[in-house]
């Protein structure tokens, strides 16, 4: 071990030197892409997610049937005509899976966007201005975080009618505290940097300093955090819809497609109704998580690659 530590240390130094050389020749973005590709699993996940996203976006063109149309065969097993079979009321399962993925991805992306925007704004303000403003914002963040997550979502879902758009809003308004804390922490660090001080002395306006000096420097951690928010949003949407408090039928979502599996006949006799949406959720979440992992490595300038 002693020798291995020394060996690592040496390797580190060699590689750092090498990296410095290569980095001089390429732009930041290029080196990020290169390091992202180095994370094999993350890179593969990226392409899998891209394919799923394309399938989901173009679901209206790809789906063999209207997802809400009732076909002749009820609860039919997978066949050439219905690749994944049909559900209890005779809707084509494959078409519903495509549309469900579309809804789940949309919820994940928009909720993440909303949470990130709210978190970034509050975090920037709290971190940069400090004092009372910081105190109030951070205590409010604590309050939101102290409510048990699912409970908050459930309560919100009872007050506002459950449905896709409300789920997006609810998840967005529940997920921001983590982002806000992260941004605040980074701002506190960066605002003492020399280049920020020099902007202040040069008489730049506060919005300019916040948006042009500070924000670009916290983008990397925000991006990485956003992937985990997206994974959680997809999981939460599916859990809520599974509980019947999320996306409402007949609109398909991966969660409400699984809802039926609470009945024993479906669970035991019709696996084609609950395994595909479940596997799809897992696939989406795993891909998003791996992409986050790869991004973390790619965006962190201290990783040796």
């Amino acid at each position, binding site marked *: *071990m*002693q020798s291995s*530590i020394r060996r690592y240390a040496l390797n580190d130094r060699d590689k750092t030197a090498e990296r410095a050389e290569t980095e001089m020749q390429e732009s930041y973005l290029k080196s990020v892409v290169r390091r992202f590709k180095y994370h094999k699993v993350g890179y593969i996940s990226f392409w899998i997610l891209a394919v799923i996203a394309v399938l989901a976006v173009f679901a209206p063109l790809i789906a063999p049937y209207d997802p809400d149309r009732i076909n002749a065969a009820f609860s039919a097993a997978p066949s050439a005509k219905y690749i994944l079979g049909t559900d209890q009321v005779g809707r084509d399962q494959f078409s519903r899976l495509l549309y469900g993925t579309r809804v789940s991805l949309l919820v994940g992306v928009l909720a993440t966007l909303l949470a990130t925007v709210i978190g970034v704004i509050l975090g920037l303000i709290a971190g940069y201005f400090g004092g009372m403003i910081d105190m109030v914002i951070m*205590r*409010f963040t*604590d*309050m939101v*975080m*102290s*409510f*048990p*997550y*699912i*409970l*908050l979502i*459930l*309560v919100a*879902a*009872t*007050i506002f009618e459950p449905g896709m758009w409300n789920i997006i809003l609810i998840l967005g308004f529940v997920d921001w505290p983590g982002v806000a804390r992260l941004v605040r922490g980074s701002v506190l660090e960066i605002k003492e940097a020399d280049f920020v001080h020099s902007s202040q002395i040069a008489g730049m306006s506060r919005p300019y300093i916040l948006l042009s000096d500070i924000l670009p420097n916290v983008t990397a951690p925000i991006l990485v955090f956003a992937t985990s928010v997206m*994974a959680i949003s997809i*999981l939460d949407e*599916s*859990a809520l819809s*599974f*509980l*019947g*408090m999320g996306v409402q039928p007949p609109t398909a979502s991966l969660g409400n497609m*699984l809802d039926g*599996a*609470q009945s*024993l006949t479906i*669970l*035991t006799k019709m*696996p084609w109704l*609950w395994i595909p949406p*479940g596997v799809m*959720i*897992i696939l989406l*979440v*795993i891909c998003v*998580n*791996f992409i986050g992992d790869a991004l973390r490595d790619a965006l962190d300038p201290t990783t040796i690659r």
Partner: protein
Amino acid sequence: MAKYILKRIAIAVIVLFGITIIDFFIMTLAGNPIEILSGGPRVNMGVLQQRAQNLGLDKPKYIQYFNWLGTVLHGDFGYSYKNYEPVNRMISEHIGPTLILMGTALLLSTLIAAVAGIYSAVHQHKAGDYIIQTIAFLGQSIPGFFLALILIYLFSVKLGVLPSGGMRRLGSAGSGIQWQYMIMPVIVLGFEMAGRNIRYIRSSMLEILNKEYLRTAEAKGIGRFRVINRHALKNALIPIITVLGMEIPNLFGGAVIVEQVFSWPGLGLMTMNAVLQRDYPVIMAVCLISAVVVLASNLVTDVLYAVVDPSVRFE
């Protein structure tokens, strides 16, 4: 140290106060309790007004809030809209099974996460590390209810070795929880929690292992085993405490879903029913109680930090 703890308590009280305000206004946003209580259109307006007066609903919102806060501080959460049972009694009937289920899952998963996370960090980039990390990744990515469905399908339907729901066999003698009924819910909860925490503990442990003082200890030649046991493990307590603290707010969310799938008669199932029936006094009581638990656990975590890591006290 005393000052540090006092400051933490003060902050917790402020946050709790804020939570009661949010709690109350969510409840008023949800609708007028009189309408919900009376139900149906054929109600005498005079009677309604009388009841509203009795309940103090004709007063301004902020006075209503303080009245409500007063009763809550006396430990009275009012009556359920649906079955007119005191909310206190409903909660005390359901909290036991939840505490047992959650406590077991929390302890087991933290133990597993600590052992696996530390093992993984010590054996970084070896086969064991990759296997543990993959399992942790799956734990993070599989929705709890889907895992529950798979387990029920395998162990209850196909193999028939474990019961699919409830906490004891109907009609069996005695009372309390039968252990067979706990296995699957604990696995589902524990897998999810351990998945989240293994990676956290692993990366914290890696950071610790790279610290200078460990290299120094190693350089002194006291052997790898003693370095890790004597010097590194003590510091690993900090991420483990963090993980325990972080899991407590999540526990309740997990309870709602797992209790629903396994029909476990605890707080989660009760809350889910209250949500479906819009039984706001019950929902709000559960919100407040869980917020208090979360704040208390945050407080304990902060104090434990100060105990374990003296540098925290002087910040």
